[in-house]
């Protein structure tokens, strides 16, 4: 069964450093998403991406965050200058179409980001 792959599984970084979280979506999927989950809290939407541009972003996704699809397979989330409160599990998801009612989402296993 096709999977969404995320690397690394765990990233520890110093506050103020830049991090890049990587995702390889399912190959025929066209819509990509990043969500995050702070420990013990709900999964929160960050950003959706389609046709090489951001479709929608949440208030969490400020100027410190950016996404990129640098080639035909990777989808990355960059945090420019990490803060302690960025510590969370970050999930990538992809879907074949834009509507979850028709296509559903497939989530990766997540990257646990720890900012120290």
């Amino acid at each position, binding site marked *: 069964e096709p999977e969404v792959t995320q690397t690394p599984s765990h990233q520890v970084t110093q506050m103020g450093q830049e991090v890049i979280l990587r995702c390889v979506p399912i190959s025929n999927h066209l819509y990509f*998403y990043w969500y995050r989950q702070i420990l013990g*809290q*709900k999964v929160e*939407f960050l950003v959706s991406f389609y046709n090489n541009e951001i479709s929608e972003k949440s208030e969490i996704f400020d100027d410190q965050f950016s996404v990129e699809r640098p080639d035909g397979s990777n989808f990355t989330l960059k945090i420019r200058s990490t803060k302690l409160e960025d510590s969370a599990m970050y*999930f990538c998801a992809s879907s074949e179409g834009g509507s*979850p009612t028709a296509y*559903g989402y497939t989530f990766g296993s997540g990257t646990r980001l720890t900012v120290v």
Partner: protein
Amino acid sequence: GESVGLHLPTLSVQEGDNSIINCAYSNSASDYFIWYKQESGKGPQFIIDIRSNMDKRQGQRVTVLLNKTVKHLSLQIAATQPGDSAVYFCAENIRNGNNRLAFGKGNQVVVIP
């Protein structure tokens, strides 16, 4: 605004018993709801979904009930097994030009052998 939340943080259930997990949502425009299961160290996994034009949908050992009048969603798991131990999230499809999922906080289910 959007608000999807769960009533009970932890549910302990005997193996073989039925489990019921509840969820409240506040966005009356949401047209689609999903239950996800999240095991430790893994991403959310799709369990079952329901469209807003339905009241009930059944899968294998799982049933989702939707009450639009009170904006309430529930997941019933029949004959709970140890492998059902996980955190369960409800999510609603927010339609505002784009589509995205808004998740509830999560409800831990612990199956006691």
